[in-house]
């Protein structure tokens, strides 16, 4: 039997393959990559009974229009997404997130748009039939690493699907509660004392706007100019996801999954691990506020975040 695959009838804005990301390459300049919203990525795999580290399709804003060829699969979409299923006989069903559907040969998934968020995830039972590079399926479009020659998908590309070893496709769902959050919790950065008292006050009290300059590398914010009283350059050094750098113009930049591995602007703060999924989903025009927490508090918040994720995984039925 021929292998099942999706034919891409419309590529969408930024459609890639993502997973948990790849480790141990920062020292040669390759970012971790991986799904921007790790919780939603994990839940999408759970809904189709995959291993939780399988590759999924990540899309941004407008998603792809996909037609299934050669086979029958289970699929699920996670996020805050408007999508439809167009059956072979042209009947159209409204799709619901956090719910798995059976898709037959020649059926189509039309991912129309994300709603109050940027990213969504499409998982298929069995996962996608792709090759890992350095232990991960993630496409890094900045360094052209990963499946599809490290490029985002285009019209007429194909994404092959592994044969699932499950005999029966079971429909599952999760009651997921997503609401955008505007308070982002941070730990003081290693250059926190480079900023004036006035800048620190403004950093925690005033609104910052998410500008249009948002991608998988990072988010540029606009708000009160943060005055640096020491030096607006540091010797380039390592970065991690969530670091907030402030260049000479005083406007903060947040590092996301495909960030440059080193940077030379002072770090005013680092977003805590538990808030990374949320910050990555906020759309341009959203206003956010920063709140400081201690390392200990951050670790406790992360435990609660992990517990919540596990609860969703366990409630899947």
């Amino acid at each position, binding site marked *: 039997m021929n292998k099942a695959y999706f034919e891409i009838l419309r590529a969408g804005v930024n459609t890639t393959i993502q997973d948990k990301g790849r*480790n*141990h*390459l*920062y*020292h*040669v*300049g*390759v970012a*971790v990559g991986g799904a921007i919203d790790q919780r939603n990525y994990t839940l999408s795999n759970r809904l189709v009974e995959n291993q939780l580290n399988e590759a999924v399709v990540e899309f941004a804003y407008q998603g792809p229009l996909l037609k299934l060829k050669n086979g029958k699969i289970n699929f699920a979409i996670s996020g805050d997404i408007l999508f439809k299923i167009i059956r072979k006989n042209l009947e159209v069903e409204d799709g619901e997130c956090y719910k798995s559907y059976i898709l037959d040969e020649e059926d189509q998934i039309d991912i129309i748009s994300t709603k109050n968020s940027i990213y969504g995830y499409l998982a298929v039972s069995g996962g996608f039939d792709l090759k890992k*590079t*350095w232990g991960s399926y993630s496409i890094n479009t*900045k*360094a*052209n*690493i990963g499946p599809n020659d*490290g490029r985002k998908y285009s019209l007429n590309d194909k994404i092959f699907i592994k044969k699932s070893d499950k005999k029966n496709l079971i429909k599952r769902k999760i009651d997921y509660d997503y609401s955008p959050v505007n308070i982002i919790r941070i*730990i003081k*950065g*290693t250059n926190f004392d480079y900023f004036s008292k006035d800048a620190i006050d403004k950093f925690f009290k005033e609104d910052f706007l998410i500008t249009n*300059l948002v991608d998988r*590398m*990072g988010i540029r914010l606009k708000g009160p100019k943060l005055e640096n009283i020491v030096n*607006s*350059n540091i*010797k*380039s*050094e*390592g*970065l*991690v*996801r*969530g*670091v907030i750098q402030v*260049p*000479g*113009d005083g406007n903060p930049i947040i590092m996301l999954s495909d960030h*440059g*591995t*080193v*940077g*030379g*602007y002072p*770090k005013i703060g*680092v*977003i*805590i*691990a538990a808030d990374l999924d949320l910050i990555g989903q906020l759309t341009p025009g959203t206003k956010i506020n920063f709140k400081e927490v201690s*390392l200990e508090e*951050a*670790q406790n918040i*992360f435990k609660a975040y*992990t517990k919540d994720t596990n609860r969703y995984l366990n409630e899947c039925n």
Partner: protein
Amino acid sequence: MVINISNLGDTAVYCDFGPEVNESINANVIDYFNHLSKLIKEKKVEGITNLTPSYNKLIISFDLTITNYKKIKNLIEGLIIYRDIKNNNQKIKIPVCCDDEYALDIIRLIEKLNINKDKILELYFNKEYFCYMTGFIAGMPFLGDLNKNIRCDRLETPRVKMPKGSVGITEQFANIYTFESPGGWNIIGNTPKKIFDDKNLDQPALVNPGDKVSFYQITKEEYLNWNE
């Protein structure tokens, strides 16, 4: 030795080797990097996901579901480091075209440094550089040290898109943008040479910490006809 250890957020440890940038401090960073890489490879330590050495810092990223800041900090403080005397460092020559269309920030540099283009390029090309670290986007080599007369701060607002192959300078350092990316360095030219190869799984970066690099100027014609 590590001078100071602190946390960078809740998922990374920040090791500071001292405020200066020189080859001797950088060698300490690389010693810790090599030692920890070996522990990770031999599975003698768990939860570390990345090591990022730079001029005078080492950042250790970890998986917060497996370990935490305190455990990694204790590990670092307990390490006894020996210098690896094996030297695999290479000498590498890289071609650069400095025609005006590639030298995006030459006007800014002429104004800020108050010297002419020919002199800037002469001082730039007439030097062998040391690679302190590799990073940012795949394989970018951070080289030093530039002649004192051509040192200049980063752009106040980084470019959203820096063309692939751009050769830039900032402060006492030189670098190459191996892929199109955002960036804030002053661009003096462009190289057609491949600096990162993801098909080479063991050593994808052309230039690695400790290597010596020199640049030579090529014409636009040579640039356009470059073939590897």
